[in-house]
């Protein structure tokens, strides 16, 4: 699934139901589409640059931070 949504060909599908492989890490644009679609929560990005989430109210962010 994640390999299908990746337009920059960072991920490559493997045969025989083996896990998807990261083949061109340097091409990643950090769009996080793979992370969102992964049902197993198996994807993790290192040194990620998250965009500013100013669509969420700061009160909600504070609440979520406390819960997490």
């Amino acid at each position, binding site marked *: 699934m994640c390999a299908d949504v990746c*337009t*920059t060909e960072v991920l490559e599908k493997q045969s025989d139901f083996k896990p998807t492989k990261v083949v061109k890490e340097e091409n990643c644009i950090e*769009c996080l589409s793979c992370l969102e679609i992964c049902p197993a929560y198996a994807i993790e990005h290192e040194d990620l640059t998250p*965009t500013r989430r*100013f669509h969420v109210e*700061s009160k909600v962010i504070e609440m979520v931070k406390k819960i997490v």
Partner: protein
Amino acid sequence: MEVEVEKKRKDYEIEEEFRTFEEYETALHAVMDISGEMVHIIESATGKGARALCYTVSKGYGAKLGMMLGKKNGVEEALDALNENQDWWNINLWSKHDEPLIEESDGVKKFKIVIRDCTVRQTLLRVNLPQRSTMCHLTNGYIIGALEAMLDVKGNIEILHAGNNACLKEITLTLKGMNK
């Protein structure tokens, strides 16, 4: 009369001073909600024409900024100026690891950009509208309008991928007076 104006100015300054972050945030969210709703309604009323409408409107807005920034010598310089002079979009040149950033042939420049911070994406997420929809053409028009004004070219933009954290777009710039 002058005293009255001066008093009003002082009142305004005091008001500005005491305006809190929450108040600004509420105002921003109101603008986001209204603009999202507006685009959604235009879309349902005019169909695909809404895309052209959004594109044209923001292209004019981008062109104004581009004219203000003045002529630039290259794509990199133009994008740098664009990033430095506005805070709503963060635009970076991007190419695959083994490919050049800008492909140029017969006066046509082709390159890809990654947009990280994007006010339109934030609005879409807030008002629960899909990406690649009408509102994305606001970003497209804005970028093309600014680049056309700064580089004196004809531009075209295509959305290659729309993600939650970044989008990938392809831009084609043609020198004015040349056929594609």
